[in-house]
């Protein structure tokens, strides 16, 4: 484990079968998650749709929030939020459930993480397609701003990856981290502009935009996917910095704690 970072990254993907292995594991995990039951891939859709229905009734019909295209608006927020929670809550115990992969062979632990997050990406892409179709039907037509979504996606990926690394490594030391994280996620859902208008949210609780890295990501995603606007570059840059910092902390924890995973579990 004395790899220096630069030669670590260059040598990493060059090992001939690593990329195809990660992709294969991601596909297997995706299948495991959705094809276990008769409804199959429909589950990937039923989850957000049922939530959208519920929130629509509560927030648009009952509380009469004045948001145009509220269903699409909700969908955009939920899509990214669910990806984030799936990547983080879903991987807290990854070093335990995937122990067989690194203990018996020399598979690098990072591969296991990347494969797991990639499997969530497959679900995200699927939902995103449904979203774009839905947006089109609602009269929101594609624009070149879609291109900027790449940056927002990278931002979200890095953030989810980092948080996943931190949580799963802390799990080795604190077995109740899952309960703690569930509370954080519960708060996070209401402290992110998922259900309500992002602009109102930012006006009143500006500091939360900076504290909560998801909030900027959701606002920017709506800018480019719904409002045909540019992302808030300052916010995007800040969030990418934020996510990178979290990823670096996660990688440091991985290097420090995870070699002892076998004995701690």
């Amino acid at each position, binding site marked *: 484990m004395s790899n220096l970072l630069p030669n670590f990254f260059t040598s990493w993907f060059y090992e*001939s*079968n690593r990329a*195809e*292995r990660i992709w*294969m*594991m991601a596909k*297997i995990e995706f299948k*495991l998650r959705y094809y276990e039951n008769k409804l199959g891939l429909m589950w990937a859709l039923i989850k957000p749709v049922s939530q959208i229905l519920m929130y629509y009734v509560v927030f648009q019909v009952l509380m009469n929030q004045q948001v145009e295209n509220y269903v699409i608006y909700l969908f955009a927020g939920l899509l990214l939020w669910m990806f984030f929670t799936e990547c983080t809550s879903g991987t807290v115990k990854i070093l335990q459930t*995937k122990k*067989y*992969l*690194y*203990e*018996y*062979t*020399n*598979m690098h632990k990072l591969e296991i993480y990347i494969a797991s997050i990639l499997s969530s990406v497959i679900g995200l892409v699927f939902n995103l397609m449904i979203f774009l179709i839905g947006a089109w039907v609602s009269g929101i037509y594609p624009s070149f701003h879609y291109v900027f979504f790449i940056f927002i996606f990278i931002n979200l990926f890095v953030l989810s990856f980092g948080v996943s690394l931190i949580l799963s490594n802390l799990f080795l*030391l*604190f*077995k*109740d*981290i899952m309960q*703690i994280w569930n509370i954080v996620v519960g708060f996070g859902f209401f402290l992110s502009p998922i259900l309500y208008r992002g602009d109102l949210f930012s006006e009143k609780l500006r500091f939360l935009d900076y504290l909560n890295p998801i909030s900027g990501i959701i606002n920017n995603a709506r800018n480019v996917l719904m409002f045909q606007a540019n992302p808030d570059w300052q916010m995007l840059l800040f969030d990418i910095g934020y996510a990178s910092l979290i990823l670096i902390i996660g990688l440091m924890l991985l290097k420090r704690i995870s*070699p*002892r995973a*076998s*004995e*701690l579990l």
Partner: protein
Amino acid sequence: MSEKALILKNVSKTFYINDKKVDTFKERLFNSMSNRNSRSFKAVENISLEIERGENFGVIGRNGSGKSTLVKLMSGAFVPDMGGEIQKNGTSMLLNLGVGMSHELTARQNVYVSGSALGLKIKEIEQLFDKIIEFAELEDFVDSKVKYFSSGMIQRLSFAIATNAGADIMFLDEVFAVGDAKFKKKAIDVMEKSWIDGRTIIMVSHSLTNISKYCKRAVYLKKGKVAYLGDAKEAIKLYNEDNAN
């Protein structure tokens, strides 16, 4: 040319045993001051040895003498205590009764994942696939989940993957304990053949006949320390003498 497959220098492993288990955030918060319950236990102490490439090396000793810990240290599952150093050249695979397989995946998926982890490309696994399944005698259960398998079936599958996919270094921790007589014979046949390929094998076994038959050199562990390192026959002789008393 004698390349080293494994070099161990001053390797020790200490486990800390807490009579009161402290591994949640809450407990750490409240119990951090009172660490009086912690006991340390040296499972393996100060071991230095070198294993040549292509060598068959035996590890013997009584229960609790540190055999499995030593093998886990060699394979990289455990990290040695400060000051110890382990160098491993090549890919390795650990085969033991725990078996490195996901119980949620099917036999087919496990073959692909394990094969790939051992360095094979997917195309190569496709070519080997039938051979592996046939060797494991699992033709009828290819797409069943491993969790429904008997322990013998799982053992056969992982053995079949290991011998066909082939890591450079194989750690065999009591692998002969499972499997019926017929499979055992087949496994031994393959192992005898695969030795010619210059694969390094580290074998842990209570079966002294196996050790003396296959290994030239062996280490005899006694309470985590090296009691003897060298000729396998000599190691077995010492082990038998110790146990006679």
